[in-house]
């Protein structure tokens, strides 16, 4: 089914990119305090949304894989973990640039930054485990994803409760209040959601193909056809 959907989704997200980019500069109001720096908001926020959606997909599919043991769910878990790690890196980089412009500091231990960083570290851990843990990599990565998902509410409570972290002023909340800004932002979220679907579907296909080749090779080895 995803064979036909991928080109359609890719085309739609490409159109979305161009339209969002155009509206970002021509339609959305110009921020007087942050000037052009504010424009990164339209990339940063959609990336953050996708980070959380991809993480949720990864956690749920990992749990289903552990319980049901169907390779399909493992493919989805791996693909969404990789895509989530990618979007997470984008969130941290764009967030860092924005922080430099808005707060004049590249990194600060603010709530949202801390949470994104911890989430991203878990995701990178999943990708690393998948790549280097050999035969039991699928189970280990799924376990890490499930425990990582369990940790999210605890990390949330933790960063909210500790007065350890300095607050770096209001971030996006005040900025996002203007209706035109909101409109362009949601268009960006939609665009990146289509892009996210494209990426995950493509990766699921390639992971499934890799698995098929591996299984065929093992069959061939067992039958003595391959050496």
């Amino acid at each position, binding site marked *: 089914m995803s064979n036909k959907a991928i080109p359609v989704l890719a085309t739609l997200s490409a159109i979305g990119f161009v339209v969002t980019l155009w509206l970002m500069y021509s339609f959305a109001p110009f921020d007087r305090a942050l000037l052009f720096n504010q424009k990164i908001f339209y990339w940063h926020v959609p990336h953050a949304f996708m980070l959380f959606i991809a993480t949720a997909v990864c956690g749920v599919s990992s749990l289903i894989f552990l319980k049901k043991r169907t390779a399909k769910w493992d493919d989805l878990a791996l693909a969404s973990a990789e895509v989530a790690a990618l979007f997470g890196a984008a969130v941290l980089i764009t967030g860092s640039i924005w922080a430099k412009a808005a707060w004049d500091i590249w990194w600060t231990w603010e709530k949202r930054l801390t949470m994104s960083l911890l989430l991203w570290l*878990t995701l990178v851990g999943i990708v690393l485990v998948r790549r280097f843990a050999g035969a039991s990599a699928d189970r280990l990565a799924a376990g890490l994803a499930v425990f990582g998902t369990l*940790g999210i509410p605890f990390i949330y409570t*933790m960063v909210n409760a500790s007065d350890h972290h300095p607050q770096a002023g209001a971030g996006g909340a005040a900025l996002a209040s203007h209706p035109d800004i909101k409109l362009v932002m949601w268009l960006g979220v939609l665009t990146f959601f289509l892009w996210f679907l494209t990426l995950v579907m493509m990766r699921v296909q390639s992971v499934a193909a890799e698995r098929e080749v591996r299984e065929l090779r093992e069959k061939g080895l067992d039958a003595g056809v391959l050496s």
Partner: protein
Amino acid sequence: MSVLRQAARVAWKDLRIELRSREIVYTMAFFGGLIVVVYSMAFPVRPDLVRAAVPGMLWVAIAFAGTIGLGRAFDRERENDTMRALLLAPIPRLSVFLGKAISIAVLIIAVAAVCTPLLALFLDAPLFADPLPLVIVLILGAIGIANVGSVFAATLLKVRSRDVLLPVILYPILIPLFVAGTHATEAMLAIPANPDKVWYWIGFLGVYDAAALVLSLWIFESLVIE
């Protein structure tokens, strides 16, 4: 109830092996002590800094020593492939897992019992001003590390790069535990001591441990199937 009795039996088996060789306890405790000495050399020992830095030092020492002990405790089951025997034993897998977790929790508590007085001694930290909350925090921390650690160390048993991958997997999962432990210890050392905060983080640790335990019990079997 019989699950718990069998778990206690598995734990007692592990602890008896350990009591005979004392390999893990001695090496872990020595390693923990070494870390404390390295801290005393690496960081300035000033009363104001000590109060802020000691909680982190304590939990990093427990994290490092705990990971080493975990890896070693499961390596022991690998050497003669006794893990297979343990899994084949006519007891529920749950008891094997619980027994392992209990014995490792005991080992980590033993290490904490060495590291904490050493930190108090070398850095002149007033850790024992109110010992009860400290003991509770350390025990809850040890249970959490042992619980999550056993799940993954058991799954990593057959993996070649398990020594590197164990911390890679454990630390992201255990971040809430380490941070809560550090905050609780920090609140104990603060002037004036902040008991409300201490008990808040103790409650946090308790809920975390309970949630992690429930999840481990639920997915342990799916993870370590051979």
